[in-house]
């Protein structure tokens, strides 16, 4: 006991919410830590690429005879893999088709739902809530959007607006439940949102076997979205990038304004940083929890809209993929700042777009991408680790008390 006390700073520990204190440290670090976490993760990913490469293995067999051969094998293995990743995510002059050369648009396509869902996590987090439920909120958003998207036929523009609105409402309901339970009963939002994720997936499966099922298919899949209900493609039929990207960028600007410039955001941030002081200053903390979860859920719901009305065009149980969970990483990496989340989502979109190219062109397992992404989470979740690797002094917030 005394040992741990000895290394601690002479600051009295927070009386309550020590868990959220830890989360706050994880989310509240600076951008440098984020960048370094990515760099370290890529370096370790590179080591994994090297040790699994057959050429490196062969060359290391005669390491002492010709050490240079091993190093050049390592270099070529790693540089080929990451080179393919980079080209696949941005621009690849070696690709056979000109559409295939412009991987950047695939990156943007993958990033779109991640931006929106990442913002959902970011906004809730700044209010002191850890919204693990983006996954469920995306599913609900996609389900609502889908229901009006293939179940109705409305004039152009209006139909799309109805779809977008429905998606936002679907997500908002799912998020709002968690917010309401937190505010009224104190139920922890982490537990509630995790459970709501399960309920969402079961619910969508049920609906896909019954009300929302495509009568012409034997699989649990919905009919195609109405032509008026889909997000227009931004660059014509050769690329998948769609108008959801515009919604995502507008959402970044909107959330940024909300958090930093509006009275509501001021309230959210105060509640997130010190709910007791917020209450003493007359803010309604429980109302804040409910409204922020409604907005957060709506943002995740819009990610669902981007999926169903932008890329997938029909509803199935895999509509959310792993977006809801990647969104948590994206928000972490973005330091729960709106623009930080935007760039982190771009990076993760690039991993996804480039990963395929890396697997095909450099014959490196796509799992490396998953490993790198996981390592990023690890390093961000352990800021002291990154600090000690790079010998960054921890920013001291409080002076030593006597």
């Amino acid at each position: 006991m005394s040992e741990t006390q000895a290394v601690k700073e002479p600051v009295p520990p927070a009386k309550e919410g020590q868990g959220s204190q830890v989360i706050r440290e994880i989310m509240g670090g600076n951008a440098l830590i984020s960048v370094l976490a990515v760099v370290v993760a890529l370096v370790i990913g590179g080591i994994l690429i090297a040790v699994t490469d057959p050429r490196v293995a062969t060359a290391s067999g005669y390491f002492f005879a010709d050490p240079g051969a091993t190093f050049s094998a390592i270099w070529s293995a790693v540089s080929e893999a990451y080179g393919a990743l980079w080209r696949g995510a941005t621009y690849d002059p070696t690709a056979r088709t000109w559409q295939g050369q412009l991987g950047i648009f695939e990156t943007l396509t993958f990033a779109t739902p991640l931006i929106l869902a990442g913002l959902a996590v970011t906004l809730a987090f700044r209010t002191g809530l850890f919204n693990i439920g983006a996954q469920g909120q995306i599913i609900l958003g996609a389900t609502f959007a889908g229901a009006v998207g293939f179940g109705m036929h409305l004039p152009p523009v209006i139909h799309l607006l109805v779809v977008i609105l429905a998606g936002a409402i679907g997500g908002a309901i799912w998020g709002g439940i968690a917010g309401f339970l937190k505010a009224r009963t104190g139920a922890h939002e982490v537990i509630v949102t995790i459970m709501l994720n399960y309920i969402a997936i079961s619910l969508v499966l049920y609906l896909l076997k019954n009300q929302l099922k495509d009568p012409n298919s034997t699989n649990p899949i919905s009919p195609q979205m109405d032509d008026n209900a889909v997000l227009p493609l931004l660059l014509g039929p050769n690329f998948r990038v769609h108008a959801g990207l515009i919604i995502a960028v507008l959402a970044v600007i909107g959330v940024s304004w909300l958090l930093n410039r509006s009275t509501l955001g001021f309230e959210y941030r105060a509640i997130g940083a010190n709910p007791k002081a917020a209450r003493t200053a007359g803010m309604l903390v429980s109302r804040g929890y409910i409204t922020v979860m409604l907005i957060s859920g709506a943002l995740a719901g819009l990610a669902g809209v981007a999926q169903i009305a932008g890329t997938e065009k029909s509803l199935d149980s895999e509509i959310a993929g792993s977006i809801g969970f990647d969104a948590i990483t994206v928000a972490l990496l973005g330091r729960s700042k709106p623009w930080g989340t935007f760039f982190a989502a771009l990076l993760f979109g690039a991993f996804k777009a480039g990963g395929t190219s890396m697997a095909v062109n450099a014959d490196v397992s796509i799992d490396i991408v998953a490993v790198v992404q996981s390592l990023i989470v690890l390093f961000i979740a352990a800021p002291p680790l990154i600090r000690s690797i790079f010998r960054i002094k921890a920013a001291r917030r409080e002076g030593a008390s006597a």
Partner: protein
Amino acid sequence: MKLELKGITKSFGALVANDHIDLVVASGEIHSLLGENGAGKSTLMNVLYGLYEPTAGEILIDDKPVKFSGPADAMAAGIGMVHQHFMLVPVFTVAENVALGGESTGFAGILDLEDTRRKIREISARFGFHVDPDALVEEIPVGVQQRVEIIKALVRNAKILILDEPSAVLTPQETDELMDIMAQLKAGGTSIVFISHKLREVKAVSDTITVIRRGKVVGSADPDASTTELASMMVGRSVSLTLEKADAQPGEETFKVTGLTVMNDAGQRLVDDVTFAVADGEILAVAGVQGNGQTELTEAVLGLHKHVQGSIMLDGKELVGRSVRQVLDAGVGFVPEDRQDDGLVGEFSIAENLVLDLYTKEPYSRFGAMNRAVIAKSAQEKVAEFDVRAQSAQDAADTLSGGNQQKVVLARELARPLKLFIASQPTRGVDVGSIEFLHKRIVAERDAGTPVIIVSTELDEVLELGDRIAVLFAGRLMGIVPGKSSRELLGLMMAGLTAEEAQAQLDAPVGDSTAGDAPAGDSTAGNTEGGAHE
């Protein structure tokens, strides 16, 4: 046993908490460490107790250098420490607490407390502690809990006892008892390091006084030195300890509390049927030992408590049942007891904290958008007006010292036109220099005709500020007495006597002192009851 610290330096990153501190504690002396909050006293003692490793310097016991890698080493070397916040297990008995960490066991590892019980009785008899080894710690008064801590150290053969702000949790009478105990321990050959910022106590018990300022020893003082002299050494400039304050000109009683009862969720009465009124242009100081319902009283006014009965009238309007927002809008300025927990958002800038309860009002915001230019400008004015020492109003509030944080809270709460001003512990953990300033602002608010309620556990502050003094004990109002009442009277009331009973006891002939022990005993029961809620 002689203890010597040589050139002790302890730094945390760039911050140097202790800078080459030299200190000699002679055998059998009471050595006081005097310094403001944040001067580095506790850090130094934590170094001595093995909790921190010094960056540089050495510790010598009887001229032999020693190295402590943890409290166990320090204890083995004969150093005992009584922390400001007791390290006791409430549901254990006294004997179990004392044995903890050094349990002796009998056959098959069965705990044998008989030896510990015997030692406790022995020590208790020798120093007149009156501690029952089989009492549960949660059921004994705070003053006795402190003695248990001292016994814990003595059982482990401590020759040097460190007492860290020991009087912070005690009534004036309990403090006097503690000082007696310290004298007896000294007579028995134990050296004591006494850490305090209360000048009166330091003067009363010390053989030697060492003054620390900003991590450095600035000199030693004679116990006969005047309090003004000591305070000036502590702060580093001359300070006036007495507040220039004209007599109150009380007007109409616009704030009335009638039959107020506050209960916690378990139905315990934290404030019990309290009735009082405060007039315009008057300061009512609420005294009492910590945890006797003062906090709940002020929080109830603000609307933070759910289970409130009775009536709180401000300017003819009922406040009970209103939201915090509505109470603030009714013209109540509120400085909470714990500024870091309730008063400030640490990671927000000073400017943001200055509008924490004004952000929805024009000109700070319009149509839901904050007006950052106006907020920044008004923050600059406030920072200048209240002498907040910061590089800029955009600095985070938690980078400020306690005194400057409190100035920010006060600046915010006094920024609006007020009909009632409530401040809990307005100067706790605040440097002496800032206390002067904060007190002046509070008196200025009174002079402007606002009814003011000050809650403080520091008797000096209560006597300094109060035009009238209300004493709370176990949630009940023991009476309201004039501002210039004696410490003895207030002390007895804080221990659970009504104003009349206390006065009668003071008027009683000398020698009848045994009568005072009984009520002081049951006072403490109520004390822990209130404390359990904290």
